[in-house]
């Protein structure tokens, strides 16, 4: 066995850590109100609001921490924050 510890770590490996568990409020995206501007995607600190094939956006709830920036910044008020478990 190599004595050398892997002092380096693999890129993007935090994906093992599912931060969706941090969330107490979850953003719910209302596509009817969406203008597909993409601001929600830009300002997601987790980088987990993804563009769907149909041009709408959805967060990856495995990682979304529920910060609510997307809801706050949505110019159409098309994202609402809902208490988890409700």
């Amino acid at each position, binding site marked *: 066995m*190599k*004595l*050398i*510890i892997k*002092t*380096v*770590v*693999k*890129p993007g490996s935090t994906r093992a850590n599912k931060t969706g568990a941090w969330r107490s409020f979850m953003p719910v995206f209302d596509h009817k109100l969406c203008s597909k501007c993409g601001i929600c995607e830009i300002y997601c600190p987790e980088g987990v609001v993804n563009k769907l094939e149909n041009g709408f956006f959805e967060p990856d709830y495995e990682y979304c921490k529920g910060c609510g920036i997307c809801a706050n910044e949505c110019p159409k008020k098309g994202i609402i924050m809902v208490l988890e478990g409700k």
Partner: protein
Amino acid sequence: MRHRMVVVEGSYAVAHAVKVCKPNVISAYPITPQTHIVEDLSQFAADGEMNCEYMNVESEFSAISALIGASAAGARTYTSTTSQGLALMHEALFNASGMRLPIVMTVVNRALSAPINIWNDQQDSISQRDTGWIQLYAEDVQESADMTPQLYKIAEDEDILLPAMACMDGFILSHVYEPVILLEQSLTDEFLPDYSPEFVLDPKNPMSFGAFADPSTYTEFRYKQEKAMGVALKRIEEVAIEFSEKYGRYYGGLLDGYMLEDAEIVIMAMGSVIGTIKDTIDMLRKEGERVGLLKVRSFRPFPADEIRKALKNAKVVITLDKNISVGKNEGALCTEVKACMYNNRDVLAPVIGFMLGHGGRDIPISTIVKMINKAKLVEKGIFIESEFADLREDLA
């Protein structure tokens, strides 16, 4: 051998040795008495004799920091410093070792302030004992130079990957002119393989260096560093032999003995005082004294087993320290030699510690003879734990 020698300054011999090791990045800050090394290296770079980036940084802290970045990017790196400069690097020394970056640095040993003093002792490198750097101490200019490729080979070993210091006494070795063989490029190319680490900062294979370790993972980093030091313990010896086969010069691996076999009084020391001790021993041997020398070449890793073996027949051991742990009234070598004897019955000889040569105070033969005479008092039941060997009574 003689026809290949030239009389040059110690610093030049070291700078030349660095040159033939072909570092990619050199980063240094001037500080007496290390300056000549970096001046000579700057000149080599200015003359187009080195294919490297020479960085004039704004402090020793940035010198070592730049090398951390360069080494992580896959470069062979070099710096040299001394005293305050080494102390300023302190934080980054742990970092370089913890990140397992095989940076090689010549430490031109010098005293620490206050009071400010530019002369030789070994307080600077001894104070970096626990930073996880390999530390070898040279007895003459040739050894100081020859250590450079040896340390690259040891540090860059994939089972070691630890940074290393080549320690040479300031002025006494850095500023002396004496005959040396300048390391041959062709032999060094054969001796020292290219540095090709498995992981480097590379956009094609984007690894992260220097991650944050919590209590669940931190301990193992230290454990593996310690294991790597264990590998280095063997490798230092092997590389010294490989070096002697290639270049025809050998100074010991971890240790080196002189008149040791039948010695009753064994002097242990590190660095340039070794030569003076050898002359003293020759003189005393003529008078029938059974005195010998155990040179400690590797202080980190510390060769405890080898020391115990070497001291088997000793009746009294004297340690010489150009440093002091204030509050312990001992130098580091003394403490460590004593410690390595405690948990076994191999060696029963008492250890007497002498501190001397601080701030460049000269160590003439007479001082060494005085210590030997004090050690002989052990036979009469008078035991000295540890003391300054060269105090000026008028100032003390």
